[in-house]
């Protein structure tokens, strides 16, 4: 059935590319279509990428990331910390304003952090702020964070839209998060029709201090409308007719789009997304490290992703992806179980598996983005060495629940899953593997200790060394076997008359530089 749909999709795409493209009206907003809607306009009430991307347009952040994913000054023109890393002082730019015209200063920063840590209704990403004890306004342009113990992941967090600065004037706004959102980002929130569209207009007072846009002032275009079009073929059709300027295309159509040259493709770099194997480690066969490593040796991720995605994504060597602190392919390659079927077979033989007695496992994979096809390639690779994997496709929510369930099940065949996470700092490994672990999976006292160290080492060099120790441990023990990065919704198709669109690290699209050529 899927194959048939795919075939038709191709025919539709081909026919569509041959078809006429409607003319574009001049002087209008940028229209960006995505597959789904945001959960909330309140940056402290949701965690989805779809929400984060919109917050990054409406709100601003203390710090920003450069093109390599490193934190740089933004609203804060500089920052200092004390020697033991428990005190951070930020100097803000003068003359910043909120979209309602009110002044933005240190008190807004304090309001944002206090709100996130409010014991009555804390932010859903409270733990990412770290052990902040208090925030003090030293003067209108200076703010200090006092921490009970060092927490180095705070700095990259302040560059991410999870830490969006919420203007204190939102406090008295009824409907903040649904019908109101006052920020100081490049775009001003106008309206949100749930499930349909979000309408933004440009912030004429916007000054770009550190975000990855060449334009140092307000966006060039007057407005930006973010539409929900769930069906990938419909998004492509809307791109062709000019109803939409920018959208994620169906993966199967990418080669045809490239060939036709009628739409431009923008591929996000340094997305922080990582796709990897992990295992149910509390029962056979994957309680034995040899079985996990055998899967690693049997997997040829490089050729699998190239077969399914072409050059749109690449094999990842490290437990955190390119653009994230500590990522070092040369280092990780030394410890990652690389493609070596003979080694896989030898390990399996050692465990008593062989012809007629294969290692049997379920392989959980989340739906969408052609991952069903990718899973089939992996299944075939595993079969080569005598691992019989049963593919089970499910939505990401169900898979998260299943992985936890599998880790708490003592009987049955093995379970492995193609898991995915996205984060801007190796602190993600703490969430995944520090006991009790995100899914009640692998934990160990020595790993716990190393992970704790990665949070408190303020010297970047010392921290990088510790992070590498963690990588080595995870790879050598087959706890987390990196597959590829980026993993999802990282390809954008752009109409030919649109220029200046680019995507910052961690999949934040930037519209400040966008210009749309007027139609004839």
């Amino acid at each position, binding site marked *: 059935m899927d194959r048939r749909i795919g075939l038709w999709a191709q025919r539709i795409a081909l026919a569509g590319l041959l078809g006429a493209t409607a003319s574009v009206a001049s002087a209008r907003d940028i229209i960006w279509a995505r597959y789904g809607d945001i959960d*909330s306009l309140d940056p402290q*009430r949701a965690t989805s990428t779809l929400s984060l991307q919109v917050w990054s347009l409406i709100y601003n952040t203390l710090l920003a990331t450069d093109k390599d994913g490193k934190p740089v000054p933004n609203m804060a023109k500089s920052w200092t910390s004390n020697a033991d890393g428990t005190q951070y002082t930020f100097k803000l730019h003068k003359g910043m304003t909120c979209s309602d015209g009110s002044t933005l200063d240190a008190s807004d920063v304090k309001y944002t952090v206090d709100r996130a840590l409010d014991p009555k209704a804390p932010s859903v990403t409270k*733990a990412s702020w770290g052990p902040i004890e208090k925030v003090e306004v030293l003067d209108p342009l200076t703010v200090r964070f006092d921490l009970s113990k060092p927490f180095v992941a705070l700095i990259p967090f302040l560059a991410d839209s999870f830490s969006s600065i919420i203007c204190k004037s939102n406090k008295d706004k009824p409907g903040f998060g649904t019908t109101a959102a006052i920020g100081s980002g490049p775009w001003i929130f106008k309206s949100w029709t749930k499930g349909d569209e979000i309408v933004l207009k440009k912030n004429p007072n916007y000054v770009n201090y550190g975000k990855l846009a060449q334009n140092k002032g307000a966006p060039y275009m007057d407005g930006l409308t973010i*539409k929900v*079009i769930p069906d990938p073929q419909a998004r492509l059709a809307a791109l062709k*007719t000019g109803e939409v300027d920018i959208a994620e295309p169906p993966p199967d159509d990418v080669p045809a789009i490239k060939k036709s040259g009628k739409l431009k493709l923008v591929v996000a770099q340094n997305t922080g997304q990582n796709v990897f194997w992990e295992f149910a480690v509390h029962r056979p066969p994957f309680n034995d490290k040899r079985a996990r490593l055998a899967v690693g040796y049997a997997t040829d991720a490089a050729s699998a992703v190239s077969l399914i995605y072409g050059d749109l994504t690449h094999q990842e060597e490290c437990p955190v992806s390119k653009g994230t602190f500590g990522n070092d392919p040369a280092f990780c390659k030394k410890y990652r179980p690389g493609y070596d079927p003979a080694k896989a077979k030898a390990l399996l033989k050692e465990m008593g598996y062989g012809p007629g007695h294969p290692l049997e496992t379920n392989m959980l994979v989340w739906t969408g983005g052609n991952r069903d096809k990718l899973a089939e390639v992996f299944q075939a690779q595993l079969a080569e060495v005598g691992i019989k994997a049963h593919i089970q496709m499910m939505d990401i929510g*169900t898979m998260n629940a299943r992985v936890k369930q599998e880790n708490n099940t003592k009987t049955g065949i093995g379970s492995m899953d193609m898991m995915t996470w996205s984060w801007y700092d190796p*602190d993600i490994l703490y969430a995944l593997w520090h006991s009790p672990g995100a899914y009640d999976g692998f934990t160990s006292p020595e790993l716990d200790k190393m992970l704790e160290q990665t949070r408190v080492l303020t010297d970047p060099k010392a921290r990088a060394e510790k992070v590498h120790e963690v990588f080595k441990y995870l790879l050598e023990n087959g706890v987390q076997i990196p597959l590829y990065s980026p993993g999802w919704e990282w390809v954008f198709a752009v109409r030919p008359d649109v220029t200046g669109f680019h995507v910052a690290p961690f999949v934040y699209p930037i519209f400040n530089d966008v210009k749309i050529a007027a139609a004839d």
Partner: protein
Amino acid sequence: MGLLTIFATTVAVTLLIHLVPGDPVQIMYAQSQGTTPEQLEAIRHSLGLDQPIVFQYLHFLGRLLHGDLGYTIRGHQAVLDVVLQRLPNTIALAVTALAIAVAIGLPMGFAAAYWQGSLLDAGLMILSIGGIAIPSFWLGLMLMLFFAVDLGWLPVSGTGPLNILLPAFTLGLSNAAIVARMTRSSMIDVMSQDFVRTAEAKGLPRSTILVHHVLRAGLVPVVTMLGLQFAFMMGGAVVVENIFAWNGVGRMAVDAIFQRDYPLIQGFILSFTVVVVFVSILLDTVYALIDPRIRRS
């Protein structure tokens, strides 16, 4: 009877959705690095998700009696507002689609019955089998490709007065085929009945017989089926709304199911059932208008 149906559906849905693994909090925050396990528990507790399903259901019913459908888990918005914002879109889509189905299917079926056994009859019926067999996701994409991309007459997607045409035709065309077949068999059935023969024997003009006797009596089963079809179309809207990004409750329900947003799913099913039950009652009244025999009994 209607109330009982509504009640039974809400119970069934509550039970079914809890059978699927994963709870909404886990799904929403499973991949959030910054949410602590204690925080997850606290969120669960505040939403009442740590209580047994029976209590959760009773709690839902209790609030329902006060006209309160609760709040969505994602975004914390009033369920009633979220549903009411989108329900009119789905009803508009289903009604337009039904009108298209009737406008095309009824004359087709009538013509096929009138010239029963002719080449026209065979042709129309083959066409209608095709109509039934074509899946709506395919038909929808084809219509989109032709009318929106190639000809540029209609918008590809979105919610608006012009935008309704493509999804409504997608839904309507396959249902037109069903209406045509049903009308044909019903008309043929009536044409062979005694009262028609009597009318013919009386020497009444054929047109009078067809309009006053055959059509009226033949329509009763068709109208019954239209009620059912309306319910199917509300259901079919789920697929079509997704293709055309029509902002209706069907699409909302799909998202809600993936996110295990229990209050929203319950709100959807409830509103959906109420609409379907209401339409059935309405149609019962319409029969009486068409067929005097029902009025008398």
